């Protein structure tokens, strides 16, 4: 067996945090000197303003040629630091890495893009800074432009581009980089959905070409899609190194409490609509998402029911009250709308006495495709108050498919399990 293409041995990175401004000037030093003339001497002894922080601690792993490895973890877990060390932007404090191949890193889309330069000029500069030779860029130029879809504006300064166009151009340059090891940080989070899809497709092509990819992302579906193996980082250490299914589900489990409920001040800050502040009649208390086992959850498998619990208070008797829920997509387009009065039982309880209530909406299993969706909630006391919580909570749906063969068309918004029937009408005799 060949040597691993990436060999990482007990890698650690220490940062020193200074609890002052990081921007030193001589003036600061002089001012400090006046503030406490003996500070200079004192500082040496106590030095309490500095603190060591280990962004990475004892990280070891090997990657074999052709592997596509996802790196996941919460913010601050050390993902970007790891990538920065691998791409030699910063050096480790301890440990060693051996890289056996040409490395291309994509930590940001459009590094070195200059607004005054034209699209064409930026392709050349950006390509060169990513490590391409001029000849390579000449050769791939047409493909790059073609992929970006901005050929019409290629000789216009990029400052006149829309931000979406800039991102597309920038990613296109990177997409044609052909290193043996590709390091990619969360760069797919930009651009519109269609372009993201195109990018993911391109990444998949690259990985099929036998290249090694290390891919940092928060997008679990992209990770599942692309990676065969996942390294999970937690507080600068590897907490799990396994196949992507296991790691993703573990990661999702850990994040159960994240974004599954909202209450208190945080909730109040989000309330919009027609609000009578002087004389409130209805108020939200809490919104939460639960799975079928009544556990807080923000990632649902498509075969699970989703419960949306809305807790609110009626401060005095309310003659008629409605709770509406609207499920919207990332661009705030309505996918599904439902209201309490759709249910006959609820119609009879229009009127509510003062008190705290919880209304629960059950969204049946097998409803959505693989999407990120948001919940908007309306609490309506007609002609008195109408409180709106726009996209108050978000959740991901992971589409599992209805048979073991495939999970086709998973990106459709609504992907219910419906009844199908096929009848034979007539046999064609030949």
């Amino acid at each position, binding site marked *: 067996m060949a040597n691993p293409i990436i060999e990482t041995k007990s890698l650690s990175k220490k940062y020193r945090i200074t609890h002052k401004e990081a921007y030193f000037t001589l003036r600061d030093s002089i001012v400090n000197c006046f503030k406490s003339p003996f500070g200079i001497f004192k500082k040496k002894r106590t030095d309490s303003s500095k603190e060591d922080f280990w962004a990475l601690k004892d990280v070891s792993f090997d990657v074999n040629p052709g592997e596509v490895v996802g790196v996941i973890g919460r913010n601050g877990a050390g993902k970007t630091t790891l990538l920065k060390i691998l791409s030699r932007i910063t050096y480790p404090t301890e440990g060693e890495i051996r*890289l056996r191949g040409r490395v291309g890193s994509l930590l940001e889309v459009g590094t070195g893009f200059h607004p005054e330069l034209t699209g064409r000029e930026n392709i050349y500069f950006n390509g060169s800074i990513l490590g391409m030779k001029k000849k390579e860029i000449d050769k791939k130029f047409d493909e790059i432009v073609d992929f970006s879809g901005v050929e019409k504006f290629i000789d216009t300064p990029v400052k006149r581009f829309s931000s979406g166009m800039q991102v597309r151009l920038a990613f296109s340059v990177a997409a044609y980089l052909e290193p043996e090891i590709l390091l990619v940080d969360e760069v797919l989070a930009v651009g519109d959905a269609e372009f993201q899809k195109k990018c993911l497709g391109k990444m998949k092509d690259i990985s099929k070409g036998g290249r090694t990819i290390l891919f940092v992302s928060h997008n679990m579906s992209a990770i599942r899609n692309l990676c065969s193996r996942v390294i999970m980082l937690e507080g600068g250490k590897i907490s799990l190194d396994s196949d992507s299914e296991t790691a993703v589900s573990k990661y999702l489990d850990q994040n159960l409490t994240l974004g599954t409920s909202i209450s208190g001040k945080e909730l109040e800050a989000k309330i919009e609509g027609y609000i009578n502040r002087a004389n409130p009649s209805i108020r939200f208390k809490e919104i939460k998402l639960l799975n079928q086992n009544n556990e807080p959850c923000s990632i649902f498998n498509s075969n699970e029911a989703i419960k949306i619990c809305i807790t609110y208070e009626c401060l005095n008797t309310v003659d008629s009250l409605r709770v509406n829920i609207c499920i919207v997509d990332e661009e705030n387009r309505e996918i599904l709308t439902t209201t309490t009065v759709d249910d006959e039982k609820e119609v009879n309880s229009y009127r509510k006495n003062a008190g705290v209530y919880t209304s629960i909406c059950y969204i049946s299993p097998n409803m959505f495709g693989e999407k990120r969706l948001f919940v908007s909630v309306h609490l309506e006391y007609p002609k008195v108050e109408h409180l709106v919580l726009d996209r108050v909570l978000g959740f991901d749906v992971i589409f599992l498919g209805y048979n073991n063969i495939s999970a086709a068309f998973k990106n459709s918004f609504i992907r219910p399990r419906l009844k199908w029937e096929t009848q034979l009408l007539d046999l064609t005799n030949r």
Partner: protein
Amino acid sequence: MPTTIEKNEIIIKAQKGWLRIDFKELWNYRELAYFFVWREIKVRYKQTVVGVAWAIFKPLTTMLIFTFFFGRFAKMPSDGIPYPIFVYIGLLLWDYFSFGLSHSSDSMVGNANIIQKIYFPRLIIPISSSLIGLVDFAVASIVLVGIMLYYRYIPNIVGIFYIPFLLFITFLSSVGLGCFLASINVKYRDVRYVIPFFIQIFMFLTPVIYPVSMVGAKFKWLLALNPMTGVIETARAIILGTKDVDWQILSVSMIISAGLFIFGIFYFRKTEKFFADII
């Protein structure tokens, strides 16, 4: 079992102390240096009307002002050369030096976003920043030809071949000093404010507006410690062919510029590992 280092293998580990300079890698990245220069030049004259002619404007007006004040009023000696030619040669080389110095010392901070996102030998940045000045030098040189024609001076053909060598010395000292200041600038932004001031003072310590011969023999050596002294004096001597090259001063300049260069780039390499973290 010890693992052997293969071709293309990169080892990343903690860097301590002084680092060697990987000239092979620098050479591999030469195209990037070219692109840095190319980008800077493109950007500089975008949306300007006269474009690259701005490179002439500065030395030309400075020359006119100096000629007026120092040449006419102060009757500054100029070794028998018409003062405009005398001062313009000095300004050409001085401008290249000061441009290289101020640009390279500001270059790391100016490219902070790139440094934090991508790897390449960092030395490319200050080096290419200094190279940009060569373009201005070339453009502004056209004016020198014009002034010399006006005063009916025939340039010394042999002297022309010395110019790349003199530029090389200037390049070494500006990059050396620039790299050193760029490293400090990453941590202490004071450098930014000191440099313009420093350059202004330094110009008067360089024989740009006056000849070395004006300074007594006692202080000549002090002046020679400034690498630009040898460069400018030699340039005047060889372009006009009016006097012999002072090899003593020139060799001192060479040694000092080489020393500055070596010190500058090694200091840069030593501090380079922290750049991305503190810039």
